[in-house]
């Protein structure tokens, strides 16, 4: 549970960890029945492809002010975050 929470970048209290763990046991126990589904001769259809459009300028009605105005911290119209390295 701690490993998953760290991977998902979510802080959990000790109480929450206990609660979530018992729910997850029963949920994962249930969805495990996927093992019994028959899928012979079926390949999964991962079709990763690009959807292109012509490289021309088109009008998009975004509000720049509404976007930048919601940054948690800003400097000179840029989003400011704590140092990464």
């Amino acid at each position, binding site marked *: 549970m701690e490993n998953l929470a760290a991977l998902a970048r979510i802080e959990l209290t000790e109480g929450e960890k206990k609660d*979530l763990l018992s729910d997850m046991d029963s949920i994962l126990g249930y969805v495990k029945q996927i093992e019994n589904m028959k899928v012979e001769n079926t390949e999964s259809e991962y079709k990763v492809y690009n959807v292109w459009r012509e490289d021309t300028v088109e009008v998009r009605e975004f509000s720049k002010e509404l976007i930048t105005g919601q940054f948690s911290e800003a400097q000179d119209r840029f989003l400011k975050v704590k140092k990464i390295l």
Partner: protein
Amino acid sequence: MKNLTIEKAHAALQKGEYTCRELSEAYLAVIKEKNKELNAYLEVYDDVLDQAKVADEKFKSGNATTLTGIPFAIKDNILFKGHIASAGSKILENYTASYDAFVIRKLKAVGAVILGRTNMDEFALGGSTENSAYGVTKNPHDTQRVSGGTSGGSAAGVASNLALGALGSDTGGSVRQPSAFCGVVGLKPTYGKVSRSGLMASTSSFDVIGPIAKTVEDAEIIFDAINGQDVLDSTSIPENLELRKYNLKPKIIGVPYDLINQEGIDPKVKDNFEKVVKNLENLGYEIKNIKLINCIALYYIINFAEVSTNLARFDGLRYGMHKDGKNLLEDYLLSKGLGFGKETRRRILLGTYVLSAGYYDAYYGKAQKARVALKKDFVKIFSEVDLILTPTSPIPPWKIGEKSDPLSVYLADLFTVIANIVGVPAISIPSGFIEEKGVKLPLGIQFMASHGREDLLFEIGKKFEEIAPKALSKPYLGL
């Protein structure tokens, strides 16, 4: 107001019996009276009368269409520029949309009046609106019970005349199940038929926006107005796509009896369903027993995986709730830990688990294969039947707080998730009432059709509505 439909309101507006402004004011008055108790709307916008003015001008200049001036409610996960959209979450409590969703652009273009945003399970994860950070939406038929979810606010709103039409989003039944619980009509269109641009992503490969309305005809009018291809959604379907328009009148209805007779289906739901089947037989439809598998495990594995991926974007930095920590990682941990509700965190963790190395093949990989196999099954089924019929929900609306175990809520999606997995359209239509401890609760039935065949759903839906008042008590609310 309780007998008002979109066509009727349009005719009255056209004749000048009342103005768009007066119609909106009438709805605002009902909202003021009832919303406090029901909690259907999270916010009523302050520009409603400005929108109504635009609509009235359309009538004056002769540019009005059927939806001009019609009062709408929209689910809280649909972006309306300059207005808050919070997806029922604390993490987006103050998030203001910077652009219009495709469906909002469509509604604005015809001059519909958007009254406000409606309550939902946080990020469309749940089945009762009990997972909203802003409290549950009560069922207007019995305020001790849930309105269903995740589009519970939209369904309860239409059922109790807080809006004449509404938009919801359907990932695994989120338009259809609350519609059934509240006694209204809910349509989940074919995947890709309505653009997802401006809809907050829950499970991207299942999500679709759909109408909630009082009648099948109203749902059809709204669907006609909001569907279409969009360059901003690469999965939206080209409008000129050749659909198999053979057999315009559906005749054979498939019923998956194995699924309906399994454990956990309320006997009263089964009873109501049997009456529906008899009525359809009397109308001349042929009923055919078909085989469908229980898809809940398959659905939820894909749901967990996509939800955990989609919700990773909420970092507390660019928008939404920000909690300051000692360093960047702590900012993330605190913002996500405090901003997301319990069910959302649970699904993010479950998604992280099913996608992690070592479990990926057994869960997500297998589920994707099973999804392909199910799609193939459906091609075969729809070569033998025109429509598939099931109850919308295996159980009637439950009491608020009654279901504390999350798995028991997942199991209530038995009939609805199938259409999202394969991408076919489905509609929930009121099928009468059952009595629970002296209170009348509405039930719904669901029809599914093959891809792109919403027309078959509207056709049978209207036929079914005609016989419904005779055979079953008509469930529209006398509120």
